[in-house]
């Protein structure tokens, strides 16, 4: 079972999802301009962009274990700061649930490239959301292993608090969708 694995091994399993989504976003974000027939790979600058993107993707795949163990939890902490900042600045407009996603999908799809762009944006959202260090999410499961070193009681409190927080978040997001 996963619980019996050392920290870096279990982190590699839980961090794989957010990293995969991050990879998809990277690929879409940097390679999307090449779908435009006017953009040519004969241009040295474009060659550099394409090479750098593929190198970055290869690096993320190669270093996935270390990235899952150390970078994904930090990304989660950065996401908390981002969410707090967005909520303070934009209020309930900053968050959106399934209804907002479907609405935005309907608005943003004018051609295949824009649909791909939207999917890339959703991919980044999924990666950042899952990196949050709250228990039932992937980032939370990575941190859970570290919290487990503090004792079973602390781990249980961390898990219960996380589950309650995620349920509250789901409810809050759906309610904010209803009142938009």
């Amino acid at each position, binding site marked *: 079972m996963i619980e019996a694995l050392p920290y870096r091994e279990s982190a590699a399993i839980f961090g794989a999802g957010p990293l995969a989504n991050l990879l998809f976003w990277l690929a879409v974000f940097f390679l999307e301009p090449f779908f435009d027939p006017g953009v040519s790979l004969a241009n040295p600058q474009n060659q550099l962009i394409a090479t750098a993107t593929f190198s970055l993707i290869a690096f993320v795949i190669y270093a996935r274990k270390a990235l899952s163990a150390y970078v994904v939890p930090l990304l989660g902490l950065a996401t908390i700061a981002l969410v707090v900042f967005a909520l303070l600045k934009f209020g309930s407009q900053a968050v959106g649930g399934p209804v907002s*996603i479907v609405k935005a999908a309907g608005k943003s799809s004018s051609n295949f490239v824009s649909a791909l762009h939207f999917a890339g944006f959703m991919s980044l959202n999924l990666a950042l959301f899952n990196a949050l260090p709250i228990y039932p999410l992937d980032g939370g499961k990575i941190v859970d292993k570290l919290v487990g070193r503090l004792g079973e009681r602390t781990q249980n409190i961390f898990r219960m608090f996380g589950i309650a927080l995620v349920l509250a978040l789901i409810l809050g997001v759906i309610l904010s969708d209803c009142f938009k």
Partner: protein
Amino acid sequence: MLFTVTIALIVLLLVFHEAAHWFEMSRRKISVVEAGLGFPTGRLL
């Protein structure tokens, strides 16, 4: 039509996300079913 493509792409993203977990699990010879259920299945499956 494009709306359907967009939603299909989002569903594919979720499958991609889970597939990454399954890939890492299978590399470490961990049963996906057992990991999903949270307890060893033994002779159940």
